[in-house]
């Protein structure tokens, strides 16, 4: 019994790496637990460490559809859960007017006509007139799905309350139709950049995964998986260089996505070895603030010699 979980976790790691996502043990464990406990995961971490990508990969791995809900300020239930197709309803009533007349024909008195009409209302508030939005969609897929609620911190606090029912019970109450339960519980992932503190109620219902910047080893693997054509020595130098930059005091640290972009850039430039000029010229791929670029530009020679030194040391070993 004790071997089971570890084996399954290893399987996840392996499966993810097939899709080009190298994950740490921590991430794999989180995915395993989420599918085991059927609980949503709240993923936090600095931007660009692959939070959204994790959900995409999970969908590929479990061979399920990914349903994505991008959060923004002012997002409400008609955009997230469901909406009635009012236009269609009105159009249909117009078209069906004559039929209605027929139905009502011969009805004696108000009471009888009303009782005949009552049946109609149910038709207009049926699933045919229901516009499903991402959250409801995720509940109604037959093969299960990966539901990604992206940047939940961007939405208003009221929206969090809306999520609670779905996340804990996997159901949505629609007044006209009753409670809609999930046929297959979707794997839910929420991401947050921590621009606002997420409420305790929501946190309590989720597993919590924090993805930090990767260590040098993991990052090298990631670059290898994402940019396989890169030369070994360059890859090591590049990652060591980026790791060095992260130790500086910057406004925005370069994340994995930036490392990958940079690796691609260097390949485009046909470079095989990192040097001071090359690094300085391409810094803007890695850093997104002018201030940061200025700070790092001063440090480039030192960082380069560190990166070259360590990779040479390794090759000697």
């Amino acid at each position, binding site marked *: 019994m004790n071997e089971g*979980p570890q084996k399954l976790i290893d399987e996840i790691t392996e499966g993810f790496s097939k899709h080009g996502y190298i994950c740490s043990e921590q991430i794999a464990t989180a995915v395993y637990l989420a599918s085991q406990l059927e*609980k949503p995961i709240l993923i936090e971490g600095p931007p660009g460490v692959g939070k959204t990508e994790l959900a995409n990969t999970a969908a590929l791995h479990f061979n399920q559809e990914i349903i994505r809900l991008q959060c923004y300020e002012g997002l409400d239930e008609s955009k997230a859960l469901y909406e009635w197709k*009012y236009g269609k309803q009105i159009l249909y009533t117009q078209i069906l007017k004559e039929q209605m007349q027929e139905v009502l024909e011969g009805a004696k008195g108000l009471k009888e006509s009303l009782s005949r009409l009552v049946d109609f209302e149910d038709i207009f508030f049926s699933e045919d007139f229901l516009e499903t939005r991402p959250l409801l969609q995720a509940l109604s897929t037959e093969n299960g799905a990966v539901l990604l609620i992206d940047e939940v911190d961007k939405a208003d606090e009221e929206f969090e309350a809306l999520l609670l029912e779905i996340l804990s019970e996997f159901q949505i109450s629609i007044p006209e139709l009753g409670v809609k339960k999930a046929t297959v519980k979707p794997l839910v992932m929420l991401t947050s950049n921590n621009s606002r503190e997420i409420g305790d109620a929501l946190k309590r219902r989720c*597993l919590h995964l924090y993805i930090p910047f990767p260590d040098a080893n993991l990052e090298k693997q990631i670059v290898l998986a994402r940019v396989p054509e890169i030369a070994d020595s360059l890859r090591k130098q590049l990652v060591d260089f980026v790791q060095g930059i992260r130790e500086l005091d910057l406004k925005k640290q370069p994340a994995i996505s930036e490392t990958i972009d940079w690796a691609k850039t260097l390949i485009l430039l046909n470079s095989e070895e990192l040097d001071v000029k090359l690094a300085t010229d391409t810094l803007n791929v890695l850093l997104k603030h002018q201030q940061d670029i200025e700070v790092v530009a001063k440090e480039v020679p030192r960082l380069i010699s560190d990166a070259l030194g360590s990779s040479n040391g390794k090759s000697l070993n």
Partner: protein
Amino acid sequence: MERVLTDFVKALRNANVRISPAETLDAMSVVNDVGYKDKELLKRTLSIVLPKTPEEKDKFDICFDSFFTDEIKESTDQSTPELNKTPTNTESNLAKTLLDGSQGEIMLAIADAAEESEIREIKYFTQRSVFTRRILEKMGIGQLEDEILQMGSQGEGDAPSELEKKLRTELTGLRERVSDYVQQQFLLHGDVSGEQLREQVFKSMNMAQIDRSYMQEVHSLVRRMAKRLANMHSRRKKNYRRGKLDIRKTLSDNWKNQGILFDLSWSYKKVDRPKILVVCDVSGSVGAYARFMLMFLFSLTEVVSKLRAFVFSSNLGEVTQDFKEANLEPAIEKALQKHGGGSTDYGQALSDFVSLCLDDIDKKTTVVILGDARNNFGPEKSHLMKLIFERAKQVYWLNPEGKYRWNTGDSVMTNYSAYCTKVFQCGTIDQLERVIATLLKTAI
């Protein structure tokens, strides 16, 4: 086994990690799945289920390591025979364990005895010695001491025997080890009420009297307070949404009413965040308070985005940028070094303030002045206060001195208070919190 987990949760709660019963249940079902065997796996899984912020995760790591080193050994070593239950008279079991037993056995004996003395109930640090003694007694230290005494009396006058010497050193070692163990357990299990007590004291103590060595703790307290205040008031703002009629949304929303505009939607312009300008006196006369004032100012800049901070003793300077970029200690040091310690000149500070940012003061601005209004009998320039007062939405003055001392000596509180919306006494953290709560309520 469930006991182990609940104890661990308790230990986590002591370390200020908030864990709800529902999360404990989650943890239990997880543990049922992964088991206790693989410690790394256990740590990874629990760290996903229990702590919910990066800070909590750090605390969790520390807690887990110190908690489960013992727990796991205890539960796997269960098979070793029980020790020290019935000490014999000839040579006590304890002596045997000390002399022959491995380190692990001794630790195990300590853990067993600790378990019997209900070490988990430890609450205050003053109880440490009691528990240490209790554990030692449970382990049979009385007999061991007797034995050593006997050996001494038999040997009359001679140098103490080898055995006696050895036992004595072992005994001192054991004492230390037990007291370390108790200390460690105390950190895990005790202190919730202790810490709360300490915080209570800090809150109601005059800020000038809090020793600087408690800076760290007070800072975390102040920071939590600032965060809570900011959270509370950012939520409050939402109730005030008003705005223009959002025609597009109204039209589309009212399809269901056959196009009759029944439910109106409003597009609210994002409420302009309030502007708060805080001016803090860091001169010699308020030196003792300055640190805490700055600490609070710092925490506030962390949580309220539109806040500008100024400090002065005679000349005034802006520190907003420094506070945003640096950490607490260096930021405060820098502010004090640059502006602090000199003699106070409110007149000069006010004219600096006016020339620096009078244009920024408008009907949405709240100006907060922290200081004792002791002006060294210099020119007060209260007409500048009037100018600020007339332009700003409100002006608050927070005075760290007791009310009875206002207007004594060189204090010119009255002259300034005429141009303040309100003047508060603010010498303790509690008072400070109350004042800031009022401030945020009215400023937003």
